[in-house]
């Protein structure tokens, strides 16, 4: 109960964190209810099936966002795509955070040449354009599952999380309670898991938010140029297919505006959580920022 109440106290004074969490919650609920929403639109039929309605219908009470080039209901497509994007974001984000945590703790806690090596690698991954590698990978390796996609995306998006976490491990590992644990001959794994990780939770959450953003946008990037893994219907693919099929010249704007708005909203929510966490748990910033 105590941590929840503590979180509540932190939330009350922190508009950004609260707004971000609420917005993210709403988006996730919409995504999770995709089955219900699709049923409501279809009224017994499958609205994402080819030929559900007429082609290229403008928005109307029957089709709130109109229909696409083969008569599928855009609203239903968007909701289904949202859920896929969220799933990949969560899975890939979690995986890349785990990679980031392992690298960061290993590097910063041990220190020495290993730290230099891993820190340089992290910076390299952070700075080099990874999209060409990702494009090449997915261009050649077709027919991969949602889980495999997440793993690949994670491999390319862990660096941001790792760097954030590393800098905090560096400051935490010299604290006296860590020294105490070391003197009492605790194993390194135990010290990391029971002394460092609990104190790092806000920063790990921060890293997770970063990683989810990176993962979602890496996949969207692939889909936008039509080189995404086949069979994964996320929001990026919807935008790509609208551009490829001439939604721009036909004026079927909901087909690409809706996914863009949703993706930007996900991004907005996660970034607000990021900024909010930073303000709440970074005492230096809290003191100076004032408002």
């Amino acid at each position, binding site marked *: 109960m105590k941590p929840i109440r503590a979180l509540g106290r932190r939330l009350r004074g922190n508009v950004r964190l609260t707004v971000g969490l609420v917005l993210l919650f709403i988006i996730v609920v919409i995504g999770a209810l995709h089955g219900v929403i699709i049923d409501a639109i279809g009224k017994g039929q499958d609205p994402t099936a080819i030929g559900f309605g007429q082609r290229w219908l403008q928005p109307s009470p029957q089709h709130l966002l109109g229909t696409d080039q083969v008569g599928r209901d855009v609203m239903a497509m968007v909701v289904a795509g949202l859920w896929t994007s969220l799933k990949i974001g969560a899975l890939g984000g979690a995986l890349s955070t785990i990679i980031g945590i392992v690298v960061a703790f290993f590097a910063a806690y041990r220190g020495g040449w290993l730290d230099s090596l891993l820190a340089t690698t992290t910076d390299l991954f952070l700075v080099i354009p990874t999209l060409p590698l990702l494009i090449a990978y997915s261009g050649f390796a077709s027919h991969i599952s949602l889980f495999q996609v997440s793993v690949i995306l994670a491999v390319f998006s862990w660096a941001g999380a790792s760097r954030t976490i590393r800098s905090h491990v560096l400051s935490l590992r010299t604290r006296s309670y860590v020294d105490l644990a070391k003197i009492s001959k605790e194993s390194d794994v135990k010290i990391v898991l029971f002394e460092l990780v609990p104190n790092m939770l806000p920063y790990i959450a921060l890293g997770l938010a970063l990683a989810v953003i990176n993962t979602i946008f890496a996949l969207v990037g692939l889909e936008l140029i039509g080189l995404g893994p086949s069979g994964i219907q996320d929001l990026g693919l919807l935008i790509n297919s609208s551009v490829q099929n001439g939604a721009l010249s036909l004026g079927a704007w909901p087909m690409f505006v809706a996914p863009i708005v949703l993706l930007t909203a996900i991004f907005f929510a996660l970034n607000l959580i990021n900024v909010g966490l930073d303000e709440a748990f970074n005492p230096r910033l809290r003191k*100076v920022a004032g408002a």
Partner: protein
Amino acid sequence: MVEVSPPGPVRHWWATHPNSAYVIRRFGIYVLTLWAAITVTFFFFRLIPGNPIGAYIQNLQQNYAYNAQASAKVVDHYKEVFGLNGNLLTQYLHFMRQLVFHLNFGPSLISYPDSAQSVIAGALPWTVGLLLLATIIGWILGVAAGAFVAWRRNSPISEAATYVAIAAAHIPFYFVGLLLLFALSFSLAWFPSGYAYSSDLSPAFNLTFIGSVLYHGILPALSIVIVGVFGNMLGMRQQMITVLGEDYLTFARAKGLMPWHILRRYAVPNCYLPQVTGLLISFGFIFNGNILLENLFNYPGVGHLLVTAIQQLDLNTVMGITDIAIFVVITAVFVIDLILPLLDPRIKYTR
């Protein structure tokens, strides 16, 4: 402590010339990082499941399948030309030798027998021009906006601008580009919808052509500028708010200096250098975003070339573009690391 081991001439020089020692060590790290990144990229492309090389050779065999014996010879010839002979290590050594001594990425498949680097060189000016101009404009406007927003951080306008920036700071350029394309090109027909210049012109150094290039470049550039302004604004604001709490600013106010003078002479000079580094760190983001953008606008730069090359299984060109991008980033970081201490006396070469 210092006198423990009798220093040799090298060690002595090393210890007495900390700046030169730093530059040499930093250069060593630079070369090492570059080598590691290019090596990893090489093996990454050779070990992708789906075997692009195999697919490529199969392609060749299909094209020359009319005569089994001739086709074997032809395939051997192409294997030789494309550096695909021998095992992975031989191929790697061949690749590195060609790259380091001849700056050669091997022939390109899309326009064989031209080399990959000449194909890339044809596309590079478009990307460099677009990115350089758009990024610099976005950086200047963003830093100015960030300084203002931090300075007036309690006004509702600043607060609203910060929220917009949090939402728009790092979205793909493609999103903004697509909305601009729909609104300003397809709906209002103010701007052309793609390519770098009007199709009835041929590249020439005259006003008509340059005008056409600028006209076609506005929408893609604007997409980068808009996202860039918000990104730089957010970074600058963060930096500046920390600086605004420093004692020397309180002192400057206590001296009765004009607020504008404080902002210009005391606050901003301490903030914009980290933004230069920030710009470098976001290079990967900018380059990635540009790949998508160029494909949206059908812009003939390296991003468009990259996607075409991948669709045609032109491995040499893909690797060339990736390696050039890596080279640019690592070199830029190296150069900035060297010149930053000259620009900011608080940063020292030695730790």
